[in-house]
């Protein structure tokens, strides 16, 4: 296998559309034949596979979403028998529901190809030493890039996402040139540099690829400045383990979607109508090369816009704007995604009824921090300090156990939150 980027990156729109149509039709035919969910959904919508005779007909197909995947857990949306699945990756939905996605041999090869294309867009070559500080476990983000970097022929260090100090030593001693991590892990590395007194001049690092969390341009600039590297962003829907869907190129002017593998649409999240190019809306993705787990019109929940103009890097692939907002308020703190409703549920269990609460997220140094303001009855402030502290601690512990994030709980008096009309449940100060 060799890297195929040149074959698709500069493909003409006409050639691409022919390829997309062929692959879309094959995907729809397979999904209809092999996945009960799709057959029923198409039948209900009164659609047969032959109706998809142009790319624009894609918009007549029903949507899928995180909920669809959860409802059909575990194997309801698999399009091949298990013996053809060579790998399973999993993650969780908003209430902790399990999600599992399977991959055939070819799916893994495609994933590897895409990872290699992301790495090449970041300028990775076979002489590079690539340190992958990403999860190698169930979600498998690290594994995907690992294969891609090996395909390019680079030297790969499977660092995983733990112990920044140790990663820093590895980076210095093994002369890593490329870092793959979440932006928050990169910030931890910066802190480790400062703490350990290792001089930046002793590092060979020249580039980075970020994934896993949205981040602001300020954060990017800070990391680029502090580590003296160039950083590009990559994107895939947060709850779908597997290949990246898009990558920035060296121009950092939007993320090129791998259109030979995915067809993007932008819809109005309220009406579900497809919006014209350039308009902001929810990103909807259809996989056209996946065998084990085809996703047709998957609503990502991410808000973005598409730009079909040719990029100055020469790639013809459409670009999507960096995702800064979601339709469903999913929040990502230090790489962990969750929903405000989950916090509400935890509080309701502890208190008996769901209290009013507010989440305030900020970045302190290298870490995301989240304060939860919870309204409690006045009496507790006067009655017992001990009960007051116990309650605070219990909430913090519960949230850590269930969501795996550290938070600071502040108990406040009833009716003290949302005094201004513009008050939001989530105040995210990181993106400012």
């Amino acid at each position: 296998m060799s890297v195929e980027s040149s074959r698709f990156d500069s493909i003409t729109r006409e050639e691409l559309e022919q390829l997309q149509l062929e692959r879309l039709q094959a995907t729809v035919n397979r999904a209809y034949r092999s996945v009960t969910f799709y057959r029923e959904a198409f039948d209900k919508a009164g659609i047969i596979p032959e109706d998809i005779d142009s790319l624009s007909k894609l918009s007549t197909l029903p949507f899928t979403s995180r909920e669809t995947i959860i409802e059909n857990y575990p194997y309801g949306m698999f399009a091949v028998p298990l013996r053809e699945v060579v790998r399973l990756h999993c993650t969780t939905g908003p209430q902790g529901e399990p999600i599992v996605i399977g991959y055939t041999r070819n799916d893994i090869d495609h994933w590897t190809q895409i990872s290699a294309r992301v790495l090449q867009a970041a300028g990775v070559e076979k002489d590079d030493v690539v340190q992958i500080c990403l999860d190698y476990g169930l979600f498998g983000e690290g594994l995907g890039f690992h294969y891609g970097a090996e395909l390019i022929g680079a030297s790969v260090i499977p660092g995983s996402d733990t112990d920044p100090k140790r990663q820093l030593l590895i980076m210095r001693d093994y002369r890593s040139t490329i870092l793959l991590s979440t932006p928050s892990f990169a910030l931890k590395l910066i802190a480790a540099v400062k703490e350990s007194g290792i001089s930046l001049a002793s590092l060979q690092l020249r580039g980075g690829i970020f994934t896993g969390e949205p981040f602001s341009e300020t954060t990017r600039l800070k990391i680029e400045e502090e580590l003296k590297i160039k950083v590009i962003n990559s994107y895939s829907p947060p709850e779908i383990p597997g290949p990246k869907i898009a990558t920035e190129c060296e121009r950092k002017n939007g993320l090129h979607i791998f259109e030979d593998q995915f067809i993007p649409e932008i819809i109005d999240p309220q009406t579900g109508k497809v919006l014209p190019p350039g308009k902001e809306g929810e990103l909807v993705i259809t996989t056209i090369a996946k065998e084990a787990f085809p996703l047709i019109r998957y609503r990502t929940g991410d808000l973005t816009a598409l730009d079909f103009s040719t990029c100055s890097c020469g790639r013809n692939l459409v670009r999507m704007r960096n995702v800064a907002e979601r339709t469903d308020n999913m929040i990502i703190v230090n790489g962990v995604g969750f929903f405000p409703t989950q916090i509400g549920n935890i509080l309701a269990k502890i208190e008996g009824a769901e209290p009013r609460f507010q989440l305030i997220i900020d970045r302190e140094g290298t870490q995301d921090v989240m304060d939860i303001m919870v309204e409690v009855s006045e009496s507790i402030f006067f009655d017992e300090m001990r009960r007051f502290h116990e309650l605070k601690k219990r909430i913090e512990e519960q949230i850590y156990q269930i969501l795996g994030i550290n938070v600071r709980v502040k108990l406040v008096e009833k009716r003290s939150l949302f005094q201004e009309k513009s008050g939001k449940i989530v105040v995210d100060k990181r993106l400012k």
Partner: protein
Amino acid sequence: MLKIRNLRSFYGNLQALKGISLHIEAGEIVALIGANGAGKSTLLNSISGVISSKRGQILLDGKDITYFPPQRIVKEGISLVPEGRQLFSPLSVMDNLLLGAYQRFSIKKKTQIERDLERVFQIFPILKERRKQVAGTLSGGEQQMLAIARGLMSKPKILLLDEPSMGLAPKIVQDIFRIILRLRDEGTTIFLVEQNAQKALEIADRGYVIETGRIVFEGKSEELLGNREIVRAYLGRGYRKVWE
């Protein structure tokens, strides 16, 4: 070079192709594989104009040839080597070859046709030896070679081959496939329909898998060979459970 969009073909009321889209680039060998009755020959016959009851779009170098009659399609540069050879058995090898050049035959082009004959004889020396023999008396392998040679006599840009290995001994099949590779290397684009999926994908650059009139897979040959479901499609066993 060849682009097909949503091709639907009919035998009376029966729809045999249900919206086929595919493309073939110049210089490629593209294989179409599938079980008996999946629509492989129907697709070739639709491209070559033998089946006229169809809808959709067939573009050759951007030119819409969907509704051209067969002789016009041959002129445009598509030549079909039909399943079961379909030679003119009572005629000589030579006459069969000349009939392959029928649509461009004229006194002026005589020398050109002679040159093409020479080329064909170079590829198939056995046909030169037997040029006076009656086609029906050739062996199966020789007949297949003659069928391909006849197809080449119209100087096609794309050669459509329908089951060229059918009914032949393994050694002859090897020879035929070697010749297909050589033709491609000498500049003819090949669209190969085969039940022998393994063999076809070994020499093809890309492939499509057809199932009951629909394309269900598209990809590079090694991708298709790595997919066990393809083997199943070829064997025609359709139904299975996820727990299998």
